């Protein structure tokens, strides 16, 4: 039993880092503590919410609002006071968690909920040469993978499909699914009415009255009472805008024509009066809720058009009555009851108009909030598997590393299926030095666009630095000299060809992130024509991740992935990207992140979304 003793020794001596104290994190911390780990550091920036309590068992109702990392630490110490747990209520992307910080650990274990943080941790682990055990769950599905530099693939060696996004016109004019209506209600209508007024918004994109007068339509007139205002907006977006859209006969040639809806029909005066003016029944200390103030109690029920309309108007008014200060900078949040009510009912009214089946508030919330299905059991199993792999890592038992999938439907009798890890992808821009290729119009595109849309969004860099040859054209972060900062700010608004070192066809950019210790090269290809629908960014990056060729078999899991898009995002469907082939097409698994969208507003839940293809024929081993 020498091996058991060796494991025990390795565990006792280990210093480990856990990133994430949510669904997987709670289970992991408990299992680590029981397994003899005695020096555990844990980072999580989240605070506790009620909907966490069904699985994040270290938390109680009284903890709602407190730091997950701190509460988890305290809960474990109550049972195992003799171990050392250090908790950080912080973002793992903060600069204090640099490569040197990571170097102190023997292994890092992720229980994260978003692609962005996962990629960041992956890079730090590569730079610090610390093994990473990565995990994710959704519903009954889950996976654990091991990433050890030079031995197995890194987290970014394989495609991470971005959530599906939709062509702008599907959202603004021709919705055919409920999710289209949700995206419209959330990203266009809600953002227009309650969000930042300066943001681009396609809400009226197809209306005939031109963009100049549009902004005024949504403004409240000086002498308008709230009810009039609400009804005017209602009539405008559900009635007038639909009439305008109907004028374009071409659009409806092969489609069902929508029905304009006006408040006087959907919402008779009496119905509104019956319930009095809004706010009467809402107690001051409670979170305002339109359904509560209208006496509706069951969020599982599908409401009629009239009820949806009542709640819509009520929610609209409550925003101005109870939360006026926030209007103008609200961002949709799945835990904001009033916002959920507004978005759900708006989506339903629009769905009604387009002949799309209506949904309950509960269902609509799931779609709008991009909520990840989560249960305690899967998290517990995944945490167990993480610890098993972590112990192998600590013992250097790399021949026995496995990635393991937790399945809902058994495959070759297996519910837990171990697979040999893959070797590093030689063309991975993160763990190899393969250059990327960027198609861009160098005469029109500004450096700022390349940095925001490509370097930060796509390459996931936090504080990038951009060099052309030996000329530094941009640097991010604190500690810059004033003149440097001013110089970089100037460069940001220059087009590529006019930078101090001009970027033209064939130029090679060097991009670095000091915190992540990641450096990569981008070869520039000048191109003037871009397809507006397929390439809305006016740039195409290739070689940055192997694409996914086939549609992922989802077990229903992709329902939530489908909703994370925003109409502002790119409209391309990753599965149809040209010129990109799936590198390891024998791989059956695809990991997906629930909130992988590049728009920062996407709300994420605590656990990850996983997609698995359970077809055993696709599964082939690939030895180290």
């Amino acid at each position, binding site marked *: 039993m020498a091996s058991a003793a060796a494991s025990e020794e390795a565990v006792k001596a280990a210093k480990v880092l856990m990133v994430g104290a949510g669904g997987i994190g709670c289970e992991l911390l408990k299992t680590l503590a029981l397994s003899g780990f005695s020096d555990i550091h844990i980072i999580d920036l989240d605070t506790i919410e009620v909907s966490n309590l069904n699985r994040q068992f270290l938390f109680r109702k009284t903890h709602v609002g407190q730091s997950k990392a701190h509460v988890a630490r305290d809960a474990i110490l109550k049972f195992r006071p003799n171990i050392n747990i250090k908790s950080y209520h912080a973002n793992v992307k903060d600069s204090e968690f640099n490569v040197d910080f990571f170097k102190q650990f023997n292994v890092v274990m992720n229980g994260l909920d978003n692609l962005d943080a996962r990629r960041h941790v992956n890079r730090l682990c590569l730079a610090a040469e610390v093994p990473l055990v990565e995990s994710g769950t959704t519903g009954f599905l889950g996976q654990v993978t091991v990433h050890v530099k030079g031995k197995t693939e890194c987290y970014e060696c394989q495609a991470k499909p971005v959530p599906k996004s939709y062509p702008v016109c599907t959202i603004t004019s021709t919705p055919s699914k409920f999710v289209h209506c949700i995206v419209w209600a959330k990203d266009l209508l809600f953002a227009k009415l309650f969000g930042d007024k300066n943001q681009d918004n396609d809400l009226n994109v197809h209306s005939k009255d031109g963009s100049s007068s549009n902004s005024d339509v949504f403004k409240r007139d000086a002498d308008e009472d709230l009810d009039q205002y609400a009804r005017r907006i209602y009539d405008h977006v559900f009635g007038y805008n639909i009439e305008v859209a109907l004028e374009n006969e071409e659009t409806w040639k092969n489609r069902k024509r929508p029905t304009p809806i006006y408040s006087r029909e959907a919402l008779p005066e009496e119905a509104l009066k019956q319930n009095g003016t809004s706010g009467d029944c809402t107690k001051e200390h409670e979170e305002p809720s339109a359904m509560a103030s209208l006496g509706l109690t069951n969020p599982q029920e599908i409401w009629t058009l009239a009820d949806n309309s009542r709640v819509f108007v009520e929610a609209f008014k409550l925003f101005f009555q109870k939360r006026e200060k926030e209007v103008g900078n609200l961002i949709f949040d799945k835990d904001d009851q009033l916002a959920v009510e507004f978005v759900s009912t708006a989506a339903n009214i629009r769905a009604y108009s387009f002949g799309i089946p209506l949904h309950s508030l509960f269902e609509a919330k799931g779609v709008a909030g991009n909520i990840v299905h989560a249960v305690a059991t899967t998290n517990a199993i995944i945490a167990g*598997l993480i610890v098993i792999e972590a112990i192998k890592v600590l013992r250097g038992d790399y021949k026995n590393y496995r990635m393991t999938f937790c399945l809902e439907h058994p495959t070759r009798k297996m519910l837990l299926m171990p697979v040999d890890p893959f070797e590093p992808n030689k063309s991975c821009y993160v763990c190899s030095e393969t250059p990327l290729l960027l198609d861009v119009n160098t005469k029109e595109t500004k450096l700022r666009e390349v940095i925001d849309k490509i370097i930060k969004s796509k390459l996931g860099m936090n504080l990038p630095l951009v060099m052309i040859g030996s000329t530094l054209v941009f640097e991010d972060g604190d500690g810059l000299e004033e003149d440097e900062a001013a110089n970089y700010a100037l460069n940001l608004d220059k087009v590529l060809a006019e930078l101090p070192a001009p970027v033209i066809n064939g130029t090679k950019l060097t991009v670095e992130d000091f915190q992540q210790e990641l450096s990569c090269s981008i070869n520039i290809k000048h191109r003037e024509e871009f397809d507006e629908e397929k390439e809305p960014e006016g740039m195409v990056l290739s070689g940055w991740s192997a694409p996914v060729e086939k549609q992922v078999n989802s077990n229903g899991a992709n329902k939530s992935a489908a909703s994370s898009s925003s109409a502002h995002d790119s409209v391309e469907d990753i599965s149809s990207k040209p010129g990109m082939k799936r590198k390891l097409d024998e791989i059956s698994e695809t990991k997906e992140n629930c909130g992988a969208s590049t728009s920062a507003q996407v709300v994420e839940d605590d656990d990850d979304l996983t997609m698995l293809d359970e077809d055993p024929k696709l599964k082939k081993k690939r030895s180290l």
Partner: protein
Amino acid sequence: MDLSKYVANLILFFRRLRIRAFRAMGGGGGGAEEELTAQETALYDRQIRVWGVDAQKRLSKAHVLVCGVNGTTIEFCKNIVLAGVGSLSLMDDHVVTEDDLNSNFLIPHDESIYGGRSRADVCCQSLKDFNPMVRVDVAKGDPSLIDGEFIDKFDIIVVSCASLKTKLFINDNCRKRNKHIAFYSIECKDSCGEIFVDLQNHSYVQKKPGGDPKQQELAYPSLQEAIDVPWKSLPKKTTKLHFAMRVLERYELSEGREPGETSLSDLPAVLALRKDMCDRMSLNESQIPTALLERLVAAGKKEHPPVCAILGGILGQEVIKSISCKGDPVKNFFYFDAADGKGVMEDIPPTPAD
């Protein structure tokens, strides 16, 4: 066959079908009429998105008994209390010893708290804290003596750290009752684990990805029937752990040992028993590797915490599936071995293919 008989048969067939469908949809016994409270909807939001409102309502009406409190069953208890079962009763009068601390995270390292108290008693309070909406209590008594009337209070019975004799006794009792009581046994031997499931006749809604929901029927063998299956009739690739666990179980029974009361010194006698059993059942001894038996006897009562989490998680899922009549349940054994990382289902005796 004459026409009237044919029609009568047809009517009977459809009636049966309707009754089954009714049961599977949440009809009958208790039903699922009442709505969940706002509090329940908020707390269970994420899991309702996995298994639906009806399953959640059924869960809240289910009564679960756990005989034998250890690291593995406590993982299971945590999972179903979080999920929101109606009630959970713990039966284990053993006084807590230091050994219990190794894998049971609900027992604090403080003798002034656990000293002199039973395992069930110490764990009960913490489980209550996990979810105030679930009733958790201690059922005093000896699992080997529980009677039918007591058993009738439950829908699910989970047995662990009990002798084969006790398991057979409880399983037999469950099958004799008029009401449907699902039986599970679960054991963790360090890095290995076994779950046995007897749902008797179970009808459920099967939903394969991309397919329409389908009503399915399963008929389970009893524990006695399952372990009596001649080894030579089992497929060659049957998990070796299945045979190894039978040898160990038989050894403990014949030596009059407590469950898990083995050590490395028992290995020669266990190997002799292996030869004996393999000869009788015409199985090649290599199907039960010595190294595996060695690990199992050396394990004794030791549970490896990650394996507890995995087994307790799988069992939690299985119990939720069985209560909700949704999803393919394990029929009828589940094995996990951390050495190869596989979590495997075995159907013993194998269900004949249609």
